[in-house]
């Protein structure tokens, strides 16, 4: 079974600084997707960034980027120029690649606090 581990229950960062959230996962599959989701107090899970395992290039979305290390099964999220609106719970998630599979496996989350 696939597992996702987030070892940082809480992180904090000064506004405008950079922070990195860690995630490791375990799978025997060679092709899969990895995601970072943000969950603000509104409770809605919002997709931040996605990485396809077959791609060696790390995904980037504006101030958000990932460091995907397939051999080490590591998938960290870097947030640059942190803003107050970035404060939220962040979840790392895994999904197998096969037709009809929509199951996401989530980690336990990291609570990110932005210090003004």
């Amino acid at each position, binding site marked *: 079974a696939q597992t996702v581990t987030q070892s940082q229950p809480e992180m904090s960062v000064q506004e405008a600084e950079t922070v990195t959230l860690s995630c490791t996962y375990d799978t025997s599959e060679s092709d899969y997707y990895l*995601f970072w989701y943000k969950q603000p107090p509104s*409770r809605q*899970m919002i997709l931040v960034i*996605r990485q396809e395992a077959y791609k060696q290039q790390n995904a980037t979305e504006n101030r958000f980027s990932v460091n995907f290390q397939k051999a080490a099964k590591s998938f960290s999220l870097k947030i640059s120029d942190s803003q107050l609106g970035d404060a939220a719970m962040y*979840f790392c998630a895994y999904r197998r690649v096969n037709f*009809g599979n*929509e199951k*996401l496996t989530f*980690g336990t*989350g990291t609570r990110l606090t932005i210090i003004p």
Partner: protein
Amino acid sequence: DAGVTQSPTHLIKTRGQQVTLRCSPKSGHDTVSWYQQALGQGPQFIFQYYEEEERQRGNFPDRFSGHQFPNYSSELNVNALLLGDSALYLCASKILTGTGHTEAFFGQGTRLTVV
């Protein structure tokens, strides 16, 4: 365009009762998944519905059942409620992106408290 809508937003039930939660997917989305998120935890996959059938199921007992209607909306039913069923229940619908990938689009959840 409305996103994924869930109702009710909050409810309180007594142990042993039954509850029904509802989800309307984003317009045009045909696949709905349900997740349970206990306090301080990540969401856990319950099941997925497509074409009115359960297609995938997570490690949840038969007390958890669902239904999908022809308009793609869905219900989650939980029988014989336990205190441990208290959680945020999230619904997600599927969108096929322009790149050919699918991604889950979540609602804001229903907070269920069992007393």
